[in-house]
C-alpha cells in the first residue's frame, strides 16, 4: 500500500449484483482493498428465510462463488477483501471460505466481525418477536481485523459505508474522534456502496454519457489521510464518473442534511465536489460530528402471505370491464376476504392502437393475509373459474401461483453499549470493540423538560 493514498474499490451493491465484478475490479487496475456490499433491508429477510431452512446458511452465497474464483488473484496482488456478505452468519461464511481456500491450496487470513445479530436478545431489548434483528455496526471492528493482518474480512450487518471507512481507519490510524476524516471516508463509502450507481448506472442524465453496451465499471475511491477522496473507475470500463453521477449517489436514500452513522454523523451540506480530470471527481470539505448514542437496528418480522393476479384488459370499455371483474371477485372472496385487497388499474392502453399490446392494460389485484390458504387457491381459483364467464377478452398475464411469505421491515434503536461488537481474528483470538465514548443524545429514550425536541432517528 502506498502511504499517502488508499485505493478502495467496490464490486457489489446488492445480493445479485454482477458476478464477474470482483474479477473485473482485481484485473482492471491497482487496488489496496476491494469491498462488496450484499445486504439490504430486504436481503436480511431473504437470508433469514435461508437460515430457517438450514442453520449453516444465512450468508450471501454469491460472494463465496466470487471468492472461490478470485481469492488466489487477490492474495497474489495483496488486495484485501472486505465484505458484509456474512449477513446473518459470518462465522459460517468464514468456515466455508476456509474450506474453499483449502481446496485451492491457499492459506489466507480470514477474520470476521459479529455482534450485530440481536435475534437472541429480542426479549431483553424489547424488540418483539422478529425473524431477524441486526444492529448496524461501525467501522472499527473491520479496522481491527485489518490491522491484525487479515486478508479477507467478512461481517454481519455493518453500515454500508463502514466497509470503506474500516480500511481507511486501519491504514491512516484515525482515532474515534477524528470526525472530519471519518466523515470524509463515510461519504466516499456512501458513494461506493451501490456499485455502478456512482459511475453512470441508473443516472437520469444517461444520454449525456453516450451510453453504449460496454458494461459500466464499478467505482473506486482514492482516499487521503485527511479523509478527502477522488472517486474514479478503472480505465477502459463503461459509464463515467462525473459530478452528476457522484451527486446522484450522494442524494440516494439519505434522509436529511446529516448522514447519521455509528461512528460519526457526516454533514452532507458540507460536501464540496470538483472535477479533477476525466472520470475523477474529488470530494472534500466534509465535516463530521459525534455519532448518536444509539445504533439503528434492522428488524424484519414475518408479516404474512401475499399473492397477485393480473387481468389483461384490451380495447373498448376498459373501465366497465374492470368494474365487472372486480365485482365478480369481490363476491367470490366475500366469505373470507384476505386482510388486504388492493386493486390498481393503470390505463396504459392507447385508443385505436395498431398493436394488440398497445390496446391493452393490466388490472392488478394484490392480496395479503396471515393465512397462506386465504391468499393461495382460495384467491386464485375464483379468478381462474371466471375464465369463460367474465368480460370479453378475459385473460390472465401469468398462471396462478401459491401465496408467498412477506416480511415487514421496521427500524429500532438500541444504546451503543448494549451491542457486543466483536472481531474473530484469523488465528481464532477475539477482540472486543468498545462503543464510542463521545456521542450525541439521540432523544429516543425519553427526555427531560426543557431539552430540545428529539432529532430524527438515524437514517443510514
Amino acid at each position, binding site marked *: 500500500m502506498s502511504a499517502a493514498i488508499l485505493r478502495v474499490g467496490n464490486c457489489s451493491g446488492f445480493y445479485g449484483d454482477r458476478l464477474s465484478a470482483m474479477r473485473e475490479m482485481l484485473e482492471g487496475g491497482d487496488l489496496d482493498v476491494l469491498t462488496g456490499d450484499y445486504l439490504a*433491508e430486504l436481503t436480511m429477510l431473504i437470508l433469514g428465510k435461508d437460515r430457517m431452512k438450514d442453520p449453516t446458511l444465512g450468508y450471501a452465497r454469491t460472494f463465496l462463488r466470487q471468492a472461490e474464483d478470485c481469492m488466489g488473484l487477490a492474495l497474489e496482488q495483496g488486495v484485501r477483501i472486505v465484505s458484509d456478505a456474512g449477513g446473518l452468519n459470518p462465522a459460517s461464511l468464514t468456515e466455508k471460505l476456509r474450506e474453499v481456500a483449502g481446496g485451492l491450496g491457499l492459506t489466507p487470513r480470514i477474520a470476521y466481525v459479529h455482534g450485530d445479530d440481536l435475534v437472541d436478545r429480542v426479549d431483553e431489548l424489547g424488540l418483539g418477536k422478529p425473524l431477524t434483528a441486526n444492529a448496524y455496526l461501525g467501522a472499527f471492528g473491520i479496522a481491527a481485523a485489518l490491522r491484525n493482518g487479515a486478508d479477507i474480512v467478512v461481517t454481519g450487518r455493518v453500515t454500508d459505508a463502514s466497509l470503506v471507512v474500516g480500511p481507511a481507519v486501519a491504514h491512516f490510524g484515525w482515532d474515534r474522534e477524528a470526525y472530519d476524516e471519518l466523515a470524509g471516508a463515510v461519504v466516499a463509502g456512501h458513494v461506493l456502496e451501490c456499485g455502478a450507481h456512482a459511475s453512470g448506472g441508473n443516472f*437520469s442524465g444517461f444520454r449525456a454519457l453516450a451510453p453504449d453496451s460496454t458494461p459500466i465499471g464499478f467505482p473506486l475511491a482514492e482516499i487521503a489521510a485527511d479523509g478527502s477522496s477522488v472517486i474514479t473507475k478503472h480505465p477502459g470500463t463503461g459509464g463515467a464518473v462525473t459530478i452528476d453521477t457522484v451527486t446522484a449517489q*450522494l*442524494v440516494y*436514500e*439519505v434522509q436529511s442534511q446529516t448522514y447519521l452513522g455509528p461512528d460519526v454523523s457526516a454533514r452532507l*451540506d458540507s460536501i464540496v465536489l470538483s472535477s479533477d480530470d476525466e472520470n475523477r471527481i474529488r470530494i472534500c470539505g466534509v465535516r463530521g460530528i459525534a455519532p448518536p448514542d444509539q445504533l439503528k437496528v434492522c428488524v*424484519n418480522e414475518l408479516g404474512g402471505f401475499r399473492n397477485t393476479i393480473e387481468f389483461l384488459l384490451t380495447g373498448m370499455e376498459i373501465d366497465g370491464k374492470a368494474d365487472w371483474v372486480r365485482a365478480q371477485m369481490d363476491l367470490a372472496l366475500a366469505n373470507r376476504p384476505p386482510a388486504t385487497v388492493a386493486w390498481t388499474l393503470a390505463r396504459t392502453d392507447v385508443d385505436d392502437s395498431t398493436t394488440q399490446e398497445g390496446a391493452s392494460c393490466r388490472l392488478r389485484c394484490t392480496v*395479503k393475509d396471515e393465512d397462506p390458504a386465504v391468499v393461495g387457491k382460495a384467491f386464485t381459483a375464483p379468478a381462474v373459474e371466471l375464465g369463460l364467464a367474465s368480460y370479453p377478452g378475459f385473460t390472465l398475464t401469468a398462471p396462478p401461483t401459491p401465496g408467498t411469505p412477506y416480511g415487514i*421491515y421496521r427500524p429500532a434503536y438500541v444504546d451503543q453499549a448494549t451491542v457486543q461488537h466483536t472481531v474473530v481474528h484469523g488465528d481464532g483470538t477475539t477482540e472486543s470493540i468498545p462503543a464510542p465514548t463521545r456521542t450525541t443524545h439521540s432523544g429516543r429514550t425519553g427526555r427531560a423538560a426543557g431539552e430540545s425536541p428529539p432529532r430524527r432517528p438515524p437514517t443510514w
Partner: protein
Amino acid sequence: MTRRKPLGTFVHARSGDKGGDANIGLWVDQSTKADERIAWLTKFISPDRIKELIPEAAELDVEVYPLPNLGAVNVVIRGLLGDGVAASTRFDPQAKALAEWLRSRHVSITENLL
C-alpha cells in the same frame, strides 16, 4: 415568462426506499446558469409542491432538505411504501422509478433558466 416543461428538463433525480419511506434526491444540471437554477429548485420544491406533483403523497408527511452545496434538494415522503419493500402492494414498491415519474411531470419553469 414561464413555460410548461417537464421538471426533468434540467433537473436530475434519483429515488429509493428506507423501510416504508421514499426518498427523492433532486439536483440541477449545473453546466449552465448554475446559481439561478439552484436558487429556483430550492424555492420551487416544497412539501406542497411534492404533494401536487405526486398526488398519492397528498395525505403523507413530506420533508424537504436543501443541499445547495450539491445543487440539490432532498425529499423524504414518509409512509409512501407502507410496511416497506417486501410488504408493499405499491406498483413500484422500492420507489426506484419514482424520481423518473416526478421528472416527467410538467411544471412552470422561468424561461431564462432553460
